[in-house]
């Protein structure tokens, strides 16, 4: 999408053979860096050496005094290509029939509006009416045909407006009500300031009739264009979603499949890769977590358990069947419980010889418990080998320091189960069913 920024000197040769004025205009570009709207002022400044601020002030003053500044700016935006583009927006807009229709709709609506205003005799807008129509139509074409980067910039401007129009939050509704009320009061005040009330009624009646006529004539057409636009917008959102999914699938699944093909001779590695990928894909599909975004601290207890599952599966190549019931936030006590659970799980994966380790965690109102179970070789608790004593001691000590308890049950040849229980402190007891 983003072409590399091309310096002005690096023009295709046929453009340099064009007439002198066109070549000179041709090197006038809209500049991306430091732009506020289209980068026209910055472009002129880069070309002429004048101060950007001065040019902006001139544009601004001519815009609010006569309206021509705005029109000129929009026309320049349309016809000057950006620094990194070879075509201007206008040449792209020629092919955009729907955009032209929309620009016509906008212009005609504005003309109707301006005619009404002039009928009402508010002289304020009459001088800037035609540049305003031109600018609005031009902006519509720019909006639809600008490069994606520019569209993003414009979206930044309009986000608050669109947000107010689309999301039906109560505070937004209040805001709209306030604005509507203000406008109504101003309108009524303008009407009331005309002293002769009867004389006012005549143009008003005429106005209503004209509005009716225009609406009857152009209304269906306006509506159709708007509806087409909504349909097109939805299609674009769908296309973006598809592109997003494709990108994620490529980053995660396809990469892993490629790795699996390359390591087809090592079943252990293939299993590990497939398992890690499965986990990642699941967490994206069902928990709404982006692939690869699992690093850092897990926010909730259930997420932390899933984290243990992922890490141990990845490091030791043993399947961990993790089941969690309920969820809550993590405090220091539960942090200790999680550390103990991780140690027990790693231990089972490393020493038991079992291919599957069950990890069950349950959050209850008064306590949180974790069970780590394997059907591996087990051991005789009476004759604990030195390497396992470390586990039992450290896990138990860690749990007891925090007021929890740990028990290890093991039978030779049948497997081992470590049970960990931690009471919940008062502050933790609020049910927080985090996502």
């Amino acid at each position, binding site marked *: 999408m983003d072409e590399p920024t091309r310096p002005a000197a690096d023009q295709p040769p046929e453009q340099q053979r064009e007439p002198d004025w066109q070549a000179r205009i041709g090197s006038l570009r809209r500049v991306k860096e430091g732009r506020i709207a289209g980068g026209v002022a910055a472009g002129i400044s880069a070309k002429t050496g004048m101060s950007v601020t001065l040019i902006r002030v001139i544009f601004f003053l001519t815009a609010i005094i006569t309206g021509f500044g705005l029109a000129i700016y929009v026309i320049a935006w349309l016809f000057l290509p950006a620094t990194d583009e070879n075509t201007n927006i206008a040449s792209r807009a020629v092919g955009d029939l729907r955009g032209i229709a929309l620009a016509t709709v906008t212009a005609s609506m504005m003309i109707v509006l301006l005619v009404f205003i002039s009928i009402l005799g508010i002289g304020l807008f009459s001088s800037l009416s035609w540049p305003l129509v031109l600018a609005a139509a031009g902006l519509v074409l720019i909006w639809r045909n600008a490069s994606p980067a520019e569209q993003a910039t414009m979206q930044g401007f309009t986000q608050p407006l669109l947000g107010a129009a689309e999301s039906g939050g109560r505070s937004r509704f209040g805001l709209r009500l306030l604005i509507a009320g203000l406008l109504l009061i101003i309108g009524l005040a303008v009407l009331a300031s005309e002293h002769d009330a009867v004389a006012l009624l005549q143009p008003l009646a005429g106005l209503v009739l004209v509005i009716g006529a225009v609406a009857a004539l152009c209304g269906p057409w306006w509506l159709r264009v708007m509806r087409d636009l909504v349909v097109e917008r939805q299609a674009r959102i769908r296309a973006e979603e598809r592109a997003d999914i494709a990108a994620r699938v490529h980053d995660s699944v396809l990469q892993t499949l490629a790795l699996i093909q390359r390591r087809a001779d090592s079943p252990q590695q293939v299993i590990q890769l497939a398992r890690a990928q499965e986990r990642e894909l699941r967490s994206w599909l069902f928990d709404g977590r982006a692939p690869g975004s699992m690093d850092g601290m897990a926010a909730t207890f259930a997420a932390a358990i899933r984290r243990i599952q992922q890490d141990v599966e990845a490091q030791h190549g043993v399947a961990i069947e993790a089941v969690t019931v309920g969820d809550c936030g993590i405090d220091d006590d539960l942090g200790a419980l999680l550390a103990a659970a991780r140690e027990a799980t790693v231990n089972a994966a490393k020493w038991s010889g079992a291919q599957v380790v069950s990890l*069950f965690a349950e959050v209850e109102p008064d306590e949180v418990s974790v069970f780590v179970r394997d059907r591996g070789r087990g051991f005789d608790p009476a004759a604990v080998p030195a390497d396992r004593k470390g586990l039992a001691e450290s896990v138990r000590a860690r749990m007891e320091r925090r007021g929890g308890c740990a028990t290890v049950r093991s039978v030779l040849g049948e497997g081992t189960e470590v049970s960990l229980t931690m009471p919940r402190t008062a502050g933790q007891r609020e*049910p927080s069913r985090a*996502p």
Partner: protein
Amino acid sequence: MSPEDAPSAAAGRPRVFIVDDHGLFRAGVRSELGDHVEVVGEADDVLPAVEGIARCLPDVVLLDVHLPGGGGQLVVSELAPVLPQTRFLALSASDAPEDVIAVIRAGARGYVTKTISGSELVDAIRQVAAGDAVFSPRLAGFVLDAFATQPGGSEPAPSFDPELDQLTPREREVLRLIARGYTYKEIARDLFISAKTVESHVSSVLRKLQLSTRHQLTRWAAERRLA
């Protein structure tokens, strides 16, 4: 449920019908099941599955939760009332609890994950063929979660039938042990009860899951979907 065909199914080779939209997966299951069962048919979508099952009258249908023409629960709800001797075992790679619960509520006798080993799958098929319920640790976790009494604060859900809307302490205990990775036999030994009693507890949980109108079940699933 129907005693005359139970012995043949449990003791001999149960007749199995596989419904899954992935041909590769069907072939894999078929080869894993090997000679332990008789695979009488396959289908890759809801309509062919309904036709095929009605024709073959298998003992057990291995049913993928996700099918292109709608969920696996469509197959179950279509056939379960007319084919009481056919049992459905849901098989899924999905972790989404609401999908799993939907198939169970439609009438499936159990749920296992697709990562299950071949021998465990054969055992699960035998159990379902004999009329028992099969709970994987994951399903047990889902059920415990769904029937959890909301810890303080939130108002208790209005219960239309307390008998159906709550698990007994014993059922809870059994489910916890399943979630911890215990087999029925191990649970029986641990709780000093017979394996038959464990099975009856599990069947009773399954019945509650299917019949309960507990609105928390739906709310819970909805919450899970939003999460």
